[in-house]
């Protein structure tokens, strides 16, 4: 039976702004299935985003939704969560939003291990502003501001999150659509900062410039570069060249920020 997404979508707010073939829609559907499988209460769930194509997601879904400023989603979400720790807080946004302008907020939310689920839509490019390179655009690739090929090295977002202190980090791609909801659901259930990186595609501003003839070509690439962590352990460094690991990359139990602050309150109140 077809899954009933309508239950979580806002009536009258579709069609969305995403281009045909954009991976963000696949990621949104994954997020909805994850929320449903975790049984989250709509009234008690906030979805926070920054600015970019990916960040338009909150407008379409029926929760407490907060579309903020470019790069600042994690910081707004920190305020929401701190002030109301009983809320489920989910952050969504693009790679540019989260790791360029928002890099500082992103790493500090990871460091605090505050209990939120950050789904980062990594399409390797700035979609909304017309395809300028992001910190995740592969070196050498074309973008509207790297006409001679991108000279910059890239961020590995998942490694960045692990290094910064996130206690649940997972990665998948929009080709592996059924894995998206499973990983996000695991992230939601995890107490602490959970980062789920979803590699997806922007046919309009990235694919076109980088000789992907169709969305199918882009999907094929996502399929080819993804290697599940278990399989990777049996592969040589040579075989892993140009690949990205998918699945749960890191998991750890560590004190969560709001719980730590609850101890501060108890101490201040003389406990």
């Amino acid at each position, binding site marked *: 039976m077809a899954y009933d997404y309508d239950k979580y979508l806002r009536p009258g707010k579709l069609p969305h702004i995403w281009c045909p073939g954009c991976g963000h829609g696949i990621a949104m559907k994954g997020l909805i299935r994850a929320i449903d499988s975790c049984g989250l209460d709509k009234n008690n769930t906030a979805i926070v985003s920054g600015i970019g194509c990916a960040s338009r997601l909150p407008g379409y879904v029926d929760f407490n939704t907060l579309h903020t400023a470019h790069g600042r989603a994690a910081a707004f979400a920190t305020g929401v969560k701190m*002030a109301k720790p009983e*809320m489920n807080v989910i952050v969504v946004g693009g790679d540019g939003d989260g790791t360029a302008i928002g890099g500082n907020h992103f790493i500090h939310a990871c460091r605090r291990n505050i209990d939120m689920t950050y789904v980062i839509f990594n399409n390797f490019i700035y979609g909304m502003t017309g395809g300028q390179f992001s910190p995740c655009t592969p070196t050498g690739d074309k973008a509207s501001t790297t006409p001679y090929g991108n000279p910059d090295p890239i961020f590995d977002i998942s490694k960045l999150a692990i290094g910064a202190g996130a206690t649940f980090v997972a990665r998948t791609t929009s080709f592996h659509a059924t894995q998206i909801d499973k990983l996000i659901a695991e992230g939601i259930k995890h107490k602490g900062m959970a980062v789920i990186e979803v590699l997806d595609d922007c046919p309009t501003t990235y694919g076109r410039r980088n000789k992907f003839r169709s969305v199918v070509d882009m999907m094929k690439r996502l399929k080819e570069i993804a290697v599940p962590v278990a399989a990777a352990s049996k592969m040589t460094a040579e075989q892993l060249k140009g690949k990205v690991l998918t699945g749960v990359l890191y998991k750890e139990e560590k004190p969560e920020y709001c719980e730590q602050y609850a101890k501060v309150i108890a101490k201040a109140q003389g406990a």
Partner: protein
Amino acid sequence: MAKKVALLQGNEACAHGALYAGCSFFGGYPITPSTEVAEVLSNELPKIGGKFIQMEDEIGAMASVIGASLTGAKALTATSGPGVSLKQELIGYACIAEVPCVIINVMRGGPSTGMPTGPGQSDVQQAKWGTHGDHATIALVPASCQEIFSETVRAFNLAEKYRMPVQVLYDEIVGHMRERIEFPEPGDLEVIDRAKPTVPPEQYKPYDTSFGDVPPLAAFGSGYRFHVTGLNKAQDGFPTTKAEYVDNEERRQIRKVEGEAARADIEKNDEYLTEDAEVLIFAYGSTSRSARYAVNELRKEGIKAGLFRPITLWPFPEKRIAALGKKVKTIIVPELNLGQMNLEVERVVKGACPVISIGRVDGEPINPGQIMAQVKEVK
């Protein structure tokens, strides 16, 4: 029963004023000369179950304050010149999304790092024009420690009542000076909470103007689900580029503060010997204390000087200053910058009388003698 009294710094008084107003969230980033506000609240907030967070920077601090406010908390940040510059994009966000919050700006010299430990009144125009786009601004400029306490309470009240960011600006002199403070008892000062929706959740629109120019604001997690964005939006909170919505909303957001009734409610001034004044001194914050002293001394010498001290700086007291401009011979505007509010006084007086600036940016206060000398020169 005698009131509780204490010898407090301006910054400490600010923190206690915030607590009196019901502040339960502080998000900040340290910067001189504002840090004591954060330090006191880091100590006091957890005692009442409130939250204090030191964010990674001022932008993050402002973001956390807006996020917290949307859950229903009364939220505050405190900073100084360069910190306010960083917050500006999000101050605009709080304006357009109509999210109540309070920003304390303990002013220092500038531009840039300027004089971190010196006093300045250098952000009075930044407070009005710092963020991009057209919007209304409420900014208060207390001049003593007691007034910092009560104006911080009023800032929260205005933020809640008008659903917007409110700035409190005072300079390092009042921020760091110690004065005797009388703590008001609960109920002595008015404390206002934002209007909450009474309609059923399905009917709630966060910008529903059928409830007036300031629509009720639901809290995240209270059963009302709604969308908040920094984009131009229709009454339901969802983005629109339709000309009539955008125009109406922008005008309403300015009208809710600058309309006549709102101005009468928000504007607050202190006039001293202005009835028969021939020379009017327009001064605010610490500078107004020197000006008051100067007025007293000048009166002793038979010179008819008077003081106009705005306590609400924005919206600017246009009507009253225009009227006084027609009555007096000269207006003198001493301030710890090179003539920022002087510009505004000139704009409003429209040439009815000369407006003379006394500007100072060397890190020293403007003393009464300097003001007296200027008055005598023009008299």
